[in-house]
């Protein structure tokens, strides 16, 4: 007797994915899609595809989707969630999209505590445009615009998004995970599900940063890419939860005050 042990989640469409072999995007798509489906919110979910290799996410996720300009996902998500508070809104973004051109939108959506979920794929490179340096490219790492390796004297240091955002008051859930080993994939799924649960429970802003492989633009094999995540990325980008919603209270309406109270 045959027993079915695995099937494609309804959270994904039947469209054939065009990601490179060994790319992290495909795995991450599946995790996000499974989370949405398992939480039973797919029909009221709106996803935002970025500009980057995952621009085609609007064809892959089986829910309402929108595709805005490079880096503007969090602003678009803000507009949607404010108009449709009962919908689950998520923005899927790469590191160029989120941490470079869209950094202002990211930080301010987080600071306002928008009740949205961001899936942030950190592959330390600009995938779609052919492997240029990203704000997350590691020191010494080669890219097509840092051919001798990222030099901190010229290009500074990579940005740690979770650490940066955890200095803010409003965010409820911030976590960093990876998908380079099966055990990590399972943890990543948990974090993604938790982030969506935070939104379902109306607890505020959630973001999961996922360290991901880009063998093509790192100019390595898929196996070497996995090893690079383990040996180079994880030590610099520590995995774990940076903020959790436990014990977080709904902010009370502030008292109206003058800038300077008269004494």
């Amino acid at each position, binding site marked *: 007797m045959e027993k079915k042990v695995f099937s494609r989640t309804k959270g994904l469409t039947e469209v054939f994915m065009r990601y490179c072999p060994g790319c992290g995007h495909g795995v991450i798509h599946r995790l996000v899609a499974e989370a949405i489906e398992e939480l039973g919110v797919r029909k009221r979910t709106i996803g935002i595809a970025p500009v980057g290799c995952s621009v085609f996410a609007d064809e892959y996720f089986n829910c*309402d989707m929108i595709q*805005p300009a490079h880096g503007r996902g969090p602003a678009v998500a803000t507009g949607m969630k404010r108009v449709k508070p009962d919908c689950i809104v998520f923005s899927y973004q790469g590191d160029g999209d989120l941490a470079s051109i869209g950094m202002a*939108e990211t930080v301010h959506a987080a600071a306002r505590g928008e009740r949205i979920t961001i899936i942030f794929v950190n592959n330390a490179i600009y995938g779609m445009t052919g492997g240029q340096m990203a704000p997350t490219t590691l020191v010494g790492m080669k890219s097509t615009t840092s051919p001798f390796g990222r030099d901190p004297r010229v290009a500074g240091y990579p940005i740690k998004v979770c650490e940066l955002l955890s200095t803010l008051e409003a965010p409820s859930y911030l976590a960093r995970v990876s998908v380079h080993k099966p055990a990590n994939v399972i943890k990543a799924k948990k974090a993604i599900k938790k982030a969506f649960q935070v939104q379902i429970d109306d607890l505020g802003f959630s973001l999961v940063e996922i360290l991901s492989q880009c063998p093509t633009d790192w100019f390595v094999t898929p196996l070497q890419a996995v090893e690079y995540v383990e040996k180079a990325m994880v030590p610099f980008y520590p995995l774990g939860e940076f903020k959790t919603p436990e014990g977080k209270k709904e902010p009370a309406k502030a008292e109206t005050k003058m800038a300077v109270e008269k004494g």
Partner: protein
Amino acid sequence: MGEKLLMKGNEALAEGAVRAGCRFFSGYPITPQNEVPEYLSWRLPEVGGTFIQAESEVAAINMLYGASACGARVMTSSSGPGISLKQEGISYISGANLPIFYANVMRGGPGLGNIAPAQGDYYQSTRGGGHGDYRVIVLAPNSVSEMGNFPKRCYDLAEKYRMASMVLADGLLGQMMEPIEFDFEPVDPAKLPPKEWALGNAEGRERRIIRSYDLKPGYLEKMTLKLLEKYNKIEEQEVKYEAVQTEDAEILLVAYGTSSRISKEALMLGRKEGIKVGLLRPITLWPFPTKILGELSGRIKKILTVEMSLGQLIDDVKLAVEGKSRVYLHGRPSGGIPTGEEVLEIIKNICSE
């Protein structure tokens, strides 16, 4: 409807938008339009709407992209420098066929310029402004009354054609006070017909996608040619203008917004002296009243455009008259405001040529 109010132009614009069903605004402060967000920051919550002071104009326009995609009547406003930043989003919104309403209360430019009234953003408004082949419907009020009543027209057009529609005003119209009577019943957005393309709550229907890109060969060309179809229809059906004493005119002034009021004054001064001056005021800058100008230029051989810019409107006038009339310019850029007397002098010079 009915009651007469005394309002500042910017406030009339904001109140007019709310009455027209606007329930979402995001914007970033910039003079001379600050009264718009200030007014909406308390007025929108009053009607259950959302006001957001965005971190930048870039964010503001993209919040509109999201809110409009979910079916809301949305608005943003700014002045030239901020509209420059919004052009990216407006291009995406145009490509994605989303209705939005926005206003530019022009100030002097280029660059940071100054905060004086000006009309230097005519090209920016009527030529698309952002990247790619697209158009925006542009309405140019010339009174506080029109500032308050045009948002409704903009929403109706934006939703009819699923595209961006704007009010192009200037600092003078934004700042001055005049009586206003709203010429429409307040719109309850909950009672508007459902938008069959809007996102959210997909229960019982196929999923929807909103986007401005398509990488399949030849497909984007088809999508953009669809835009042209609707633009052609708009050029045929939606042109609005005001013609003043054009029947017997021997010289025709063409001006919009504040310049059209100044031109009207020059017209009256001229008529008193027996000079047969007429005025054509485009109310829609795009679609431009090309046809009527073409007709008038068959008969009136001298046309003077009056603009608070180096001369931008004049390009559309020249295209419309196709060389049948001589077209002159009186342009005062970057905060210069012409007077009626000044314009009359120029009219006299032209007539004595």
